[in-house]
């Protein structure tokens, strides 16, 4: 079994009528510093004047458009230091991708 090296906690949530889902998981080191993020890919999103096929929140919770589009079979992005280091269909696999990018197992 893969044991996570960082301390992962829920980050931003999406709340609404009939909707409750985690939009990101934040990985902190033993000192409590946010080292990595695993972010849910959203979309398509209608902004009022155009449709974004795939977007995600950056670390300041700004919506970032993904180009060219949603990666095939991936619903989560693994991010370290503001860079995307991996994509995965489920968050745990994205967590492993982020930890691997940090030089772990």
């Amino acid at each position, binding site marked *: *079994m*893969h*044991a*996570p090296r960082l*301390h*992962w*906690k*829920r980050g931003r949530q999406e709340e609404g009528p009939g909707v409750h889902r*985690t939009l990101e*998981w934040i990985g902190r080191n033993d000192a409590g510093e946010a080292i990595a993020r695993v972010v849910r890919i959203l979309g398509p999103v209608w902004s009022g004047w155009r449709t974004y096929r795939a977007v995600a929140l950056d670390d300041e919770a700004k919506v970032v458009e993904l180009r060219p589009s949603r990666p095939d079979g991936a619903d989560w992005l693994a991010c370290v230091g503001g860079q995307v280091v991996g994509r995965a*269909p*489920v*968050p*745990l*696999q994205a967590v492993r991708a982020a930890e691997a990018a940090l030089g772990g197992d």
Partner: protein
Amino acid sequence: MPGTPLEKIRNIGITAHIDAGKTTTTERILYYTGMSHRIGEVHDGNTTTDYMEQERERGITITSAAVTCEWHDHRINIIDTPGHIDFNIEVNRSLRVLDGAVFIIEGVAGVQPQSETNWRLADRYNVPRIIFINKLDRTGADFFRAFATLKEKLDIVALPLQLPIGIEDKFVGVVDLVEMKAIVWEGGELGAKYHDEPIPADLAEQAKEYRQLLLDTALSVDDAAMEEYFDKGDVEVATLKRCIKAGTISGAFRPVLCGTAFKNKGVQPLLDAVIDYLPSPVDVPGIAVAAEEGEDEHVERRRIKADPSAPFAGLAFKIINDKYGTLTFVRIYSGTLKSGDMVMNTTKGHRERIGRMFQMHADKRAEIKEVYAGDIAAFVGLKDTTTGDTLASQQDQVVLERMAFPVPVIDISVEPRTKEAVEKMSLALQKLAAEDPSLRLRTDPETSQTILSGMGELHLEIIIDRLKREYGVEANIGAPQVAYRETITRPHTETYTHKKQTGGSGQYAEVKITFEPLGRNEGVVFDNKVVGGAVPKEYIPAVEKGIAQQAETGVLAGFPTVDFKYSLIDGKYHDVDSSALAFEIAAKSCFRDGMKKASPIILEPVMDVEITTPSDHVGDVVGDLNRRRGMIQNQESSGSTVIVRAHVPLKEMFGYISDLRSMTKGRASFTMQFHHYDPVPRNIADEIMAKSA
């Protein structure tokens, strides 16, 4: 209050392609749960759920059968459904009322066509399901290859909860990835004895890899479980099971188990999975009420939650007639009902008194006095309730979402062998049609033949067989006739004088009529343009009558003539010899002579055909449609499936289902409905006229 708490009830269906092992699995379930003391076998014709004579003779399931059993303090109501596409209505109506389903996949062939069809039906009704890869003892069985077909053909996230230990004749048990242990069957005692042991060393690495996949996928549906994992590096079994259940109900993934029902291995863990992962009546959102007239179908509507103390609501989903009368199977969604209670049939708007009620065990019945939300029961004595009707309390007269039924695609004509059996056959067919919404019955107005429309040749063959066995009616069946029509393509004016003098008063009438073609479906139009009383008013209806009668038998091949206008523009009469009859005869003759000169043609019905085929067969399907004089309208791709839409003459569609199945190895299906009439090509018109001559 109900004996079994709602959260301990499971209403499930067992469904699959033909011969994948549904009935065999059901037999083991009944044996291991103590409901039967022997295991029946399909090939011996002695299974519990295949109780009809035809089922036992042919070794196939024709009608869905309900049975009930107990497992680990839970009550499981099971409906075993047919696999053959001709009896798809049984799968359709069962999935409509069930809370969960077990899809059995063959370990050699993987996902087969009927599994695809049934899977799409289950998608339509949002039925949570688990998959059982069966027949792993068979030569050529391959769990991983069968598993790969789940993604390939159903495009789903399939999640293994088990791995096989050994394969083919060396298959002995399964690795349980939830509890990380091996379950091994000991042989003997028909598979009732099995034990847990450590995972074999040669499977340890593979089990670890699949366990990680299980955690990755299952925990993603539950944030608290994710946090438990981040804290401990693993999760409790109870947490994992909770996640698997949540993902199964939401459809985020589909759990996969394996075994061989015939060799008695893997069925008990399947029962555990039914309890652990399929929903109870309170775990599902409840059935939606039907959209009101004019209401948007997609708007979220009120849902009826399972609650024994709420007003009663149930859905009639199956009707059978036997020697004791009519049994109506009802899924109870809410409330409690006692024998003798009055309910409303809210679909038809009348009251029904509930007579006796039974819990069914295949063809056996046990009388019950009360039914509760979550139950499936059979009612006797309902006067006018048919499949798909809602029964509801008079305080809350809800109408539940109706069931969707497939359109019959094959017609045959049927007539009793003796005149005495005419009425008997008519009554019997009406009863059979009331049981089976995929069977339609009509009388051809032109040939007066009784036409049976069904889902396929086997479907209709079974109906004819039931007619004989259950109702004692021997019938001749024949191929149906295409309903051709005739019309004209250019205007023509004809004058005809009917004159007869045979002593006494004679017959005299003259009519001058212009015949003109009309557009399709414009019917027959009459215009009276007579001026100055050339044809007295009292004879005009006789002219109309003559044309109407003659138009029933066209001038080319005797088919009804349609889409033309005729104008009576002039005529002559005689004070003594003219009569209504004389004008009627004159009009008929005028029609016969005139229509021949107005360039008549024969029209044929053209069907709107929709074929759903795997993309690797689309070339064969389209080529075949072209050979059948089909006009392709469009092609749409959906994953690995292509939907081809075409207009094809009905004449070319007889026997199509068999050709389509052989062309696509049974993986394609089609529906068709009447679209329009088109002129028949000259060579075919010549054939038709030669036949009618």
